[in-house]
């Protein structure tokens, strides 16, 4: 079974890119699993996930209900920053579109939202607060993914 762990975020927007950092940290942990990062939205996502059987998504969320570093398993994508696109459609519409036109799209097995400090800070690294929390975030998501892999 071809599995993809997809980290999403903007690499020049600091905490916004937490999904990228976490995905990179997961690279090599799981056998027969590709890890990819992307700052893309809309149809670009279809290109990335096409051909995989299942996908895990890691994205940033900004929601005052959760303190920074909280990992939230999202039942739907409403709260994740990058799963919605402006110029078109959101992640699940993309997958449905793929199915409708006969493209092999994966099952979305898990969406992990990571609460961040701010989404408006330019920078190529995480904020100091999020950087301190990164190892714990990676451990939590790795455990979730391991259970789903069984």
């Amino acid at each position, binding site marked *: 079974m071809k599995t993809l762990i997809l980290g999403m975020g903007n690499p*020049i927007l600091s905490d916004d890119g937490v999904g990228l950092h976490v995905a990179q940290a997961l690279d090599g942990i799981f056998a027969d699993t590709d890890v990819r990062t992307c700052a893309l939205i*809309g149809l*670009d996502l279809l290109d990335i996930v096409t051909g995989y059987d299942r996908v895990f998504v890691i994205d940033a969320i900004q929601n005052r209900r959760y303190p920074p570093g909280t990992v939230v398993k999202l039942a739907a994508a409403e709260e994740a920053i990058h799963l919605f696109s402006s*110029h078109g459609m*959101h992640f699940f519409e993309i997958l449905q579109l793929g199915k409708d036109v006969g493209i092999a799209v994966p099952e979305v097995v898990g969406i992990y939202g990571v609460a961040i400090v701010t989404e408006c800070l330019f920078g190529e690294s995480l904020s100091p607060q999020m950087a301190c929390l990164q190892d714990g975030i990676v451990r939590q998501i790795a455990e979730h993914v391991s259970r789903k892999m069984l």
Partner: protein
Amino acid sequence: MTGKTLTIDPITRLEGHGKIEIFLNDQGDVADAFWQVSELRGFERFCLGRPAEEMTRIAPNICGICPSAHHMAATKALDDLYDVAPTPTARLIRQLEFNAFYIEDHYVHFFFLAAPDFVVGPDADPAERNILGVIRKLGKEIGARVIDIRKKNREIIRLVFSKPPHPEGGLPGGVSRGITADERRRIKEIADDSVAFARSAMDIYKEVVLRNKKNLDLLQSDAYQLKTCYMSLVDENDRVSFYDGTVKVIDSNGKALFRFDPKDYVDHIGEWVEPWTYIKMNFLKHIGWKGLVEGPETSLYRVAPLARLNVADGMATPLAQMEYAQMFDVLGGKPAHHTLAMHWARLICALQAAEHNQIIASDPLLTSKDIRNMNLRLKRVGIGCVEAPRGTLFHHYETDDRGLLTKINLIVATQNNAAPISLSVKKAAKEFIKGGEVREGLLNRVEMAFRAYDPCLSCATHALPGQMPLLVNIRDTGGRVVRTVRRS
């Protein structure tokens, strides 16, 4: 009844964070309306102190929508900064990539953002008013063709600039790789297929919009007309040009006001700041800031597809020229102030891009190995300009004598259009919201007014990607929320 404020926040199907504030009077009619952008700026500061060459990789990451446009503007700014012209072959390869980007960009906009309003209908359930609804109406083969033609043009971008959607092939004085004879054949195949698709897309537009009375009425409605000046790049024959040219400006009656070298943009484009939005509002300096007004006295101008066709004397390719003539015939001549005709103009621009790539694919120079001019001389100021899919885009860099950035200014399409977008929203709101009736279909008609511009708030504020659900707050005159409507 007391006056109310409607807040559409953030706007559906648009990049970044923006909202519409609609103020109702005591009768429930629209007293005023504004398009607000609530993001913080800061991209320029992020770049200062970096080597200028990094801008071709940094700028495309502002968001995932216009990466090729920012990459090309940055590449051209570096040409100017290093006082070097690209070789003829490099210029062809850049145009090839830029046209491929135009094709994918314009069709994604039309079929994913515009078509739902015309094919599924402005009053349709929002859950149906999307590309899936379009496919249900037009057939799944249309969806497959859009995906296929986009994929093929992405193949061109990958081939020449290595990494779509964030390309990396532009270098000062040239490009990073050349084209082989085998690659030329594949490029020609894709260009031929793109022209065929472009023609079928024009047919779909005519069937769906021009031959449907409701849609034609919407297109020609006064609610969606705005009399502004227009700005665009044109080539040496005053034809629509995407990659290069001079900037031409016409007034709201279509009279040519002036033209200028993009390097002189600061002499012609003023930036006005309003306290209620973070986006700067551009105006024509020659006229001076006259406020948010349309008509003969306005200093506001529009960019983007309709502006391109209004400003130019014609298209640069034959099939696109035929469509250009038909469009202005239907719309009653030039300039056409029909905001919703942006979609039509967008399809004509995509057709030109496809035809131009056919021409480039047959150019003997395309496979030359002379792809870079290395005669670089740092002159510390560089300005690049392209006609991006969303309108005229300027990148302005200044450096120290080591080539490290000391100043950056970007004028992006959405900033050019900011004030007209606000005015377009106001006109549509006044037309469609009356007597306090605020239903989904009416709000969507207001959104259609600015969606036609395909604004990209991330670039305009240099801030943030992403989108959130629609939130409508209705407030009384004291600012108290009396009703909230949320659409996800």
